[in-house]
């Protein structure tokens, strides 16, 4: 598979075209908007917590295929997860897209998120892949806006 096919795996294209959990979440108790000035990507993440657990999560925004698919898959994966689990997942994901060494257990946890493995060959696109995650973290920390700069 060529590098570019590796980057734009089918699942990524599919999620970018039909993003899951897309749209505002009424009654969200946490929300934040993230910007990637390089691409002009914009992602707003809404979260409803139940104690320490992400009960509901939705997102809206616009951007490149990588950032949209990442937001879509992130919301799928973090639903019903505890904050600690979400944070750990972000760390593994970050390692994946920046070309860090993953331990076997970490790879196992990635699941579908492994489709972003091609990003590491495209350093300028790392921010696209991590934007939604940074925004989620900001939402949970109570910061309203973040940029990838």
């Amino acid at each position, binding site marked *: 598979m*060529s590098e570019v096919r590796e*980057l*734009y795996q089918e699942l990524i294209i599919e999620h970018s075209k039909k993003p899951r959990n897309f749209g505002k979440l009424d009654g969200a108790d946490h929300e934040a908007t993230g910007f990637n000035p*390089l691409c002009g990507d914009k992602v707003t993440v809404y979260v409803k917590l139940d104690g320490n657990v992400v009960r509901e999560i939705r997102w809206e925004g*616009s951007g490149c295929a990588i950032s949209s698919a990442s937001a879509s898959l992130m919301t799928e994966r973090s639903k019903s997860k505890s904050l600690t689990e979400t944070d750990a997942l972000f760390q593994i994901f970050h390692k994946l897209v920046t070309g860090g060494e993953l331990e076997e257990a970490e790879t196992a946890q990635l699941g579908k998120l492994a489709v972003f493995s091609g990003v590491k060959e*495209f350093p300028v*696109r790392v921010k696209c892949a991590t934007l939604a995650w940074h925004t989620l973290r900001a939402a949970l920390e109570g910061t309203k806006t973040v940029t990838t700069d």
Partner: protein
Amino acid sequence: MTPIGTPTTARPTRTTEPAPGGFNAERIREDFPVLKLKVNGKPLVYLDNAATAQKPRVVLDALRKFYETECANVHRGLHWMSEEATRDYEESREKVRQFLGAADVKEVIFVRGTTEAINLVAHSFGRPRVRAGDEILITAMEHHSNIVPWQILCEQSGAQLRVAPINDDGELLLDEFEKLLSPRTRLVAVSHVSNALGTVNPVAQIIEMAHRRKVPVLVDGAQAAPHLPVNVRELDCDFYAFSGHKLFGPTGIGVLYGKAQWLEEMPPYQAGGDMIRSVTFEKTTYNSLPYKFEAGTPHIAGVIGLGAAVDYLSRVGLARAAAYERELLEYATERLRRIPDARIIGTAREKAGVLSFVLEGIHPHDVGTILDQEGIAVRAGHHCAMPVMDRFQVPATARASFAFYNTPQEVDALIAGIEKVKEIFS
């Protein structure tokens, strides 16, 4: 085969007669070492000329010659090398004067680039004369560097920024522009060619309209100087700015042309060495033009390299090159039009060098990444013209921008690349 860049093929400077056919881009390419590069295993197809243009060997040689044989400061040494450097530096100024058709070398100020040129005018021309309630008039297609300095000036002075609208083709609405010229307008600042849309503005008409009301005009020529013959005296503009790096010259050097009458009146922009005649702790008298605006050690190598670039362009013949580029742009436009779901942003009747587009449902950054894998360099983004993106309701565009060394085969490669993008996203 003799590359165009060698002195043996020297032609008289700057032809303005209509272009004879048979422009030989393949031969021109020989003059640009970088064009032989491979990217991702594919021949480089460089279509990002509006961001910066590649440099012919003669420019690289001029830089090397300066550093190897005459590296010295200018206007201050009594020794041989300093004299050589000063002579070459000032010869470049004369070359630029001819290139722009300016009346006098003292009207040619070396700066870092278009951005610095505009800031200089905002600072030294704008600040002393713009008051609360006054207006600065720009257009809706300006580069950020022809917006933000005026916004700052307006904030500081209480003046208003007025913006002349454009139509859906990306053409300035001249009637609207004229209506916005008011007794309070202190300056018009307008791009000659839009970097995001490729529109060539009718600057001669704009200048005439403004001058009828005694309003001076600054022309941002960053995208025009490399593509069209420019004559500042025929245009009668008050200021003209361009960047050397977009004109096949080095980075970090550019030119502000200003009418002597204004430059004489204006206070210095930066202060330091070279721009003074005499200094005591009580009083400093400034140097004469153009040195009043060239404080500190200038980018000497850059100036000399720019002189070489200007020489090169006069040998190539900008009018002939422009005619060739126009055909190339038409060809590219025609081919892109035939791709379903491609939308061209910027469809003005008069265009130069730029083909901005979006593909339905595919973000320009994804287009850029996939084209890059094919060795094709385009720019994807807002092109430092976010208001233009808002006007056309797109977050960004992909932009192919051409120079006279680009070929129809490269356009074909671009089109094939776009087909590949569509296939990946199908």
